[in-house]
């Protein structure tokens, strides 16, 4: 995403329009609060100290889930991409699992694992596993045969081939896989916190809904959106720094 003055002006225009509707009292402000009311809700949320706590909880769950699901996905993707027997045997099973919408497993997870952190982290890990597994698998399988030939000719050590060729080659696929996983992870954080949680952004929005605090719901939504955007942005910046040869866009 590129910000320019036209985009910024448009954004400002939309905010002004939102404010205008509310200011002219065209809508019921209890159901559709204006931007300042939402900002105020956000500020008092921040001042209460709960905002940072909610953000911290949600991010912690997201990152733990990403780390667990991601590591498993990448390792299995690497193994299946390199060992044809494994791919032939196991990949169809994972393709079937992949077809389930991850959000739909949450009710089952609640029955099996309850509503604690473990259940939430499990749902996030489950959801992010698939994009990382499949992008690693495709990335490894599409390594040009020339790279492997050079590796074979030049290095007698299979470990060198693995670390210097097989692992770096699929990184462009992995970078986009991680971005998809981040998006998916945020959906799962939110959904898993809607039901049975005592903190987190999903919980904040769900409890605001019970008391009809639309301003708080909107503030929660905006924070969630900003957080998701920021996480992706940071990831892109770090990837560009670490892997300057990957075209991240």
């Amino acid at each position, binding site marked *: 995403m590129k910000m320019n003055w036209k985009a910024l002006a448009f954004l400002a225009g939309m905010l002004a329009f939102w404010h205008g509707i509310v200011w002219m009292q065209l809508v019921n402000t209890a159901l559709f609060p204006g931007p300042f009311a939402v900002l105020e809700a956000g500020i008092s949320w921040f001042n209460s100290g709960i905002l940072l706590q909610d953000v911290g909880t949600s991010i912690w769950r997201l990152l733990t889930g990403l780390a667990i699901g991601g590591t498993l996905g990448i390792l299995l993707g690497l193994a299946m991409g390199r060992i044809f027997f494994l791919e032939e045997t196991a990949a169809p099973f994972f393709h079937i699992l992949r077809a389930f919408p991850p959000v739909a497993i949450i009710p089952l997870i609640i029955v099996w694992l309850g509503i604690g952190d473990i259940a939430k982290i499990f749902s996030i890990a489950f959801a992010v596993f698939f994009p990382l597994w499949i992008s690693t698998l495709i990335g490894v399988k599409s390594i*040009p045969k*020339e*790279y492997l*030939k*050079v590796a*074979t*000719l*030049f*290095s007698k050590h299979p470990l060198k081939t693995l670390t*210097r*060729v097989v692992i*770096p*080659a699929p*990184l462009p696929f992995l970078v986009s896989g991680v971005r998809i996983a981040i998006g998916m992870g945020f959906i799962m954080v939110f959904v898993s916190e809607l039901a049975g949680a005592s903190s987190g952004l999903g919980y904040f929005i769900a409890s605001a809904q019970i008391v009809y605090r639309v301003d708080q719901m909107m503030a929660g939504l905006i924070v969630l959106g900003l957080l998701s955007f920021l996480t992706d942005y940071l990831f892109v910046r770090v990837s560009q720094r670490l*892997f*300057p*040869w*990957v075209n991240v866009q």
Partner: protein
Amino acid sequence: MSHALVSVKGLNVHFKEPVLKGLFLSVKKGEFVSIVGKSGVGKSTLLNAISGLLKGEGEIHAPPTIGFVFQNHSLFPWMTVKENLSFGLHENDEKKIQELMALLEMQGKENDYPTQLSGGQQQRVSLGRALATNPSLLLMDEPFSSLDGHTRLRMQEWMMNLIQKIDTTTILVTHDVDEAILLSDRIVVMKDGSIHSEHVVPFTKPRLNEIRYQQPFQELKKKIIESYD
């Protein structure tokens, strides 16, 4: 007559159908041999077999250290020029790298990534990586064919100069008969899975690009192309 550095005797390679059928080829030390022939005739297969990347039936004698230059995907995109060059070396041999950079006329580009280089520069680095281990045999599979016409001409000229400086034995696969004549001591034409004919190139080296417009060059070219079918 010097001893054969590469000798292939009765090589058979079979994929779904036989590709190489009892092929014989012998290359002397210091010789530059080009292999031409129609697409799909098995030229790349032959290079792969000589390098040991592919197992076939028959006898193959080739030196243990071999450099290989490919047409596409010739460099690792995640490594800088310097890292690509030193991939085959045991440790970072700064002196060797600088020597290669000078030979490739690429000084100052050590830390560039392949995507930052032109196609011709990429192929030069690829050649440099192949030469880094001081191979006794250099194999090149259509190294210039993905380059545009002008760059290809410049690279052929540059290659002509380079082979005067290094005395590596070289086998080049190419579709460009001009390129084969300009660079080689001998050209072999492959057909039906074996060597169909051989043509010694009589022009003295170093050859200038201009010789391709001269009568004897054109006659040799005609003779080679006619032997394709």
